């Protein structure tokens, strides 16, 4: 199975897996499909577009690296491709907003950060 690089390894991309046997999609990478157990998985780069499912603005962080960033918005986004992911988001996001991803530096890592799709915000934090 071809393994695509994504943000968890420092690449500006969101990657998901799709099962050739049952069609299920999954976000957490595994060597098998968590729905049916088949090992015939394909990996794809996601479009980076989706809809906000939930938000929480973190105002109290626990490490020196993350404290430097407060407040920062943790969001769950339902990707257009049919999986859910956790990411950062602009502080003004609301549930149901259509969003597009960009990638920003956070605590020494590259992380996905979503902004409203209608008013793209390209500023890096």
């Amino acid at each position, binding site marked *: 199975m071809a393994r695509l690089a994504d943000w968890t390894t420092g690449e500006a991309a969101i990657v998901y897996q799709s099962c050739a046997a049952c069609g299920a999609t999954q976000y957490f990478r595994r060597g098998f499909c968590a729905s049916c157990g088949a090992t015939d998985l394909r990996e794809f780069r996601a479009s980076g577009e989706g809809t906000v499912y939930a*938000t*929480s603005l973190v105002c*109290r962080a*626990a490490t020196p*690296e993350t404290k430097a960033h407060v407040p920062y918005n943790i969001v769950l986004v339902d990707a257009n491709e049919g999986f859910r992911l956790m990411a950062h988001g602009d502080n003004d996001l609301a549930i149901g907003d259509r969003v597009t991803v960009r990638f920003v530096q956070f605590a020494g890592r590259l992380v996905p950060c979503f902004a409203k799709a209608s008013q793209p915000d390209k500023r890096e934090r």
Partner: protein
Amino acid sequence: MSYITGVGLTSYGKHEGSSSLDLMSQAAALALADAGLARGEIDGILCGYSTVSPHIMLATVFAEHFGIQPSYAHAVQVGGATGLAMTMLAHTLVEAGMARHVLVVAGENRLTGQSRDASIQALAQVGHPDYEVPLGPTIPAYYGLVASRYMHEYGVTPEDLAEFAVLMRRHALKHPGAQFHEPITVADVMASKPVALPLKLLDCCPVSDGGAAFVVSREPTNAARVRIRGCAQAHTHQHVTAAPALNKLGAEIAIAKLKAATGIAISDVRYAAVYDSFTITLAMLLEDLGLAARGEAASRVRSGYFSPDGEMPLNTHGGLLSYGHCGVGGAMAHLVETHLQMTGRAGDRQVRDASLALLHGDGGVLSSHVSMFLERV
């Protein structure tokens, strides 16, 4: 059949200089004395974990320290659901004839044994190591996500959530062992520092030192007649990213299984002990369990329904939110208080009728659930 024959609980808050083993030992000694049992009569030990003093064999570390050589012993780890999961296992072991008296014990110096940052950081690791933790979430953020969605879907307001913090604090004021002794108002909760919005400081349980223990026995050992009537679990996911829809969470699955297995209806329940790590946790679980209709738990708090003299007294010791949360022992305090209520020993917190109690624990991010009915016979 199994009985809870003895309970033990330390005060929660600061126990400067006490180790996790010290707190476990204190609670265990209280539980044995309450059951009227000697150490040599305990033939099973189940214990929780300690984030301050992690060990791959905590049950035998404790057994040696406490002076017991059990025929059955190991630790259990299901996050906040651990206490009730251990109780369910003790019940199963006793029913199967594997043990006569199982000591269930947990304790941790989580407040004074490590920095608050270290506690927050340790707990955040329930998140996915690759896909969640690098984003800097905290336990309040995981629950903050759930809260935002629940409030969106069911029209629950921040003021609604604040009611649960106020209720738990009011209950804690009557318990000398509680961590907090100052009354609070909805306005205080609303004005408290933001932690992970929509959750503010007073929406969150504290970090505490403390210990709790009980004995689960095949036969009563004293006048207490508190029987474990039935238990059920459900585990739908680990990470909040992989959680099912709000109407498909484990609490609803566990309570449905428990009701089917026992023939007991929610209308039969007289006392409720429900996990309350955050105000949103308590609001959601009460509604998932059927103790209030969707979106209406807060109005039941306002009307006095969950007060000691109300129709469904709830966490009369103050819960995790105000009695305190020392890890596994945190939710075990709910069971200790339930036992005191069921045996008429709750002093000026005593409710009129606690003959049938519903207990519910939650671990992870609404990941692992245990529901249980206790019955006075």
